[in-house]
């Protein structure tokens, strides 16, 4: 009897969900109530039938959405984002000359990730940009084509291949990634002290991960990245080898820690020719047109996170993070270290109206601590030999859209002459889909 009644009610709900216009929801409730009144069902049984049937209909509608689509669509996720930026920069050069610039910029990115089979994913992404590995921004009205501008006067912007990779997961604890990869798939770092977040490294990475019980997991990233592949001369390829073991540990329901230790070896960096592209800002020590020193770096990093840290005093702040990383280039004995430290509080992610987050980073990078084509390009132009303060405030305007204000105040620390301070203000409107 229960099964027959369930089928009748299910048919009614499906009809309702397909948009047949009679007030069936109310009539189904009336039907069930009549059955209760007649003693055929108890109130509990009626509630059980009604609820389980509603759940079944929801599930069928969801499955219907997917089964009517072709398999390749079902297996492919498309995502992208658009960022509009106002940027103000005040630079005081070494000779005391001050310069103010104001520009409008945009970044547009579109990517797809497709499941080739149960164990293989492929990802491809395109983005605006001029070829600078540390930026996908384009500047409105940039007439300086020799430094990456598209010509101004409403010229069309260039679109580049941002990433293209394959990710093979033969086992639940092992991923093999290769191609032009996302930085997140290559390594973990809590700040952009060493790597600008727009860099998409080329090469191959092995990712290992293992749970050690309900509160801890370990991971290891390791691989080889290709920095140069000059096949026209006898020059050796510059490769970056890295290995990064790390751990995630949950101290309790609200406090967690993530840490990693990374070793980098940029083989053949010493005596290699440095880049001649317009995006490159040379600050490492050089002998003529070649790097004077190699780069073999160690870098420990730590991030400490607390959920609802101020609950005891009635303040509703979702998360608080403290983080830091340090780098030491073992291949050189002076001006070879750097560190960043900072904190973040507010919502962990900006997902809806009213979500907010404040983040502060202090960074110092000596002249030869890291290769000068890697660090965050907004922090004093991506140069080494700098100190910098950065504050970012983000605010959610609604689902998938937010505003952000990012301010850098940076100085040169190379030599004993003027600091040549720079202030960079970036106001962003972010939209993603």
């Amino acid at each position: 009897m229960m099964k027959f009644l369930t089928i009748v009610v299910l048919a009614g709900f499906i009809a309702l969900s397909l948009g047949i216009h009679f007030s069936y929801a109310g009539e189904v409730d009336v039907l069930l109530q009549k059955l209760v009144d007649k003693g055929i069902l108890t109130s509990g049984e009626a509630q059980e039938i009604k609820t389980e049937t509603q759940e079944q209909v929801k599930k069928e509608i969801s499955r219907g959405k997917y089964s009517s689509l072709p398999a390749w669509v079902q297996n492919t996720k498309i995502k992208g984002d658009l960022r509009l930026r106002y940027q103000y920069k005040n630079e005081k050069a070494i000779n005391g000359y001050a310069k103010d610039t104001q520009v409008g910029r945009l970044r547009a990115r579109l990517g797809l990730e497709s499941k080739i089979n149960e164990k293989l994913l492929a990802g491809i992404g395109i983005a605006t940009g001029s070829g600078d590995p540390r930026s996908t921004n384009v500047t409105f009205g940039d007439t300086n084509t020799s430094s990456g501008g598209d010509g101004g006067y409403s010229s069309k912007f260039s679109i580049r291949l941002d990433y293209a990779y394959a990710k093979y997961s033969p086992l639940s604890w092992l991923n093999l990634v290769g191609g032009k990869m996302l930085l997140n798939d290559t390594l973990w770092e809590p700040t952009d002290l060493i790597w600008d977040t727009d860099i998409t490294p080329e090469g191959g990475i092995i990712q290992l991960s293992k749970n050690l019980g309900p509160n801890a997991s370990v991971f290891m990233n390791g691989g080889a990245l290709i920095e140069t592949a000059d096949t026209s001369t006898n020059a050796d390829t510059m490769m970056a080898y890295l290995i990064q073991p790390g751990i995630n540990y949950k101290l309790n329901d609200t406090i967690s820690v993530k840490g990693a230790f990374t070793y980098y070896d940029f083989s053949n960096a010493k005596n290699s020719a440095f880049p001649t592209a317009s995006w490159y800002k040379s600050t490492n020590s050089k002998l003529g047109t070649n790097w004077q020193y190699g780069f073999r770096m160690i870098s420990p990093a730590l991030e400490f996170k607390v959920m609802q840290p101020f609950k005891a005093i009635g303040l509703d702040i979702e998360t608080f993070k403290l983080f830091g990383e340090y780098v030491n280039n073992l291949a050189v004995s002076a001006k070879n270290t750097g560190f960043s430290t900072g904190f973040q509080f507010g919502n962990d992610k900006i997902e809806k109206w009213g979500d907010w987050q404040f983040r502060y980073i202090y960074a110092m990078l000596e002249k030869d601590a890291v290769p000068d084509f890697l660090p965050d390009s907004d922090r004093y132009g991506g140069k080494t030999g700098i100190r910098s303060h950065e504050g970012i405030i983000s605010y959610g305007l609604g689902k998938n859209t937010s505003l952000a204000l990012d301010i850098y105040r940076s100085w040169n620390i190379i030599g004993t002459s003027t600091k040549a301070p720079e202030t960079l203000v970036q106001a962003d409107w972010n939209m993603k889909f």
Partner: protein
Amino acid sequence: MKSLRESILLASIVLGLIVPCYAEKMIIEGSTTVLPIAQKAAEVFMSNDSAADISVRGGGSGVGIASIIDGTCDIGDSSRSIKDGELDRAAVLGRDIKAHVVAMDGIAVIVNKLNKINALSKKQLKDIYTGRISNWKDVGGSDEKIVVISRDSSSGTFEAFGTLALEGAKVRSDALMQASNQAVASTVGRAPQAIGYVGLGFMSGEVKAVEYEGVVPSKETVLTGKYLLGRPLFMYTNGVPKGLVKEFIDFVKSPEGQKLAEEEGFVALR
């Protein structure tokens, strides 16, 4: 005789080692509201069936649903309905998530037993929790600041209360968040100006449930839907349950299982 005793002893030892290897294992994970029902039912079930090995964990409704979709548990407990996004993910992964209603729960709005307020309307409760009303005198009580107690956002009880009572509005920023139903009841029981909400099974002697929209929360009013803050409690399975999972779900829904749910303070379906 001696060799017979030794043989029996040896057989017992061997069986004692072998049987656990063949014990049927099952993992239940999810809602902390459903947890007492799952734990009690598992205890009684295992006492009746020594071959069953059932592990019961909390973690929250979201964890329970995610685990059943990922296939890392056999039954996912939840005090809320599965969301559309979760259903979509299940569809992509080819999972057939089936809902089983195992009991009903009423969310009782509680005040300290010394509070003279005995009833609140939907608007009054919403205004208290969203910050529009901050003094008991504005709802017919004494001239005292209202101490608002709520649950943290990972709780299914919080989600249900937020949907049913607050219609999605944000809880006031000065509300004190508690991590469990027991903690809410305990806090309201100690603070005469406090207001909170708990599952019906978590009432204590120091608090009283107020009428909500003129209806007192009870088994009858929750089952008939007259009490508007009622909600079903779910156990989700991957597909139509079979074997030990089916036997356990059938047990929970049986009169014996429903009696256990009632003893834990929930509203039985039978």
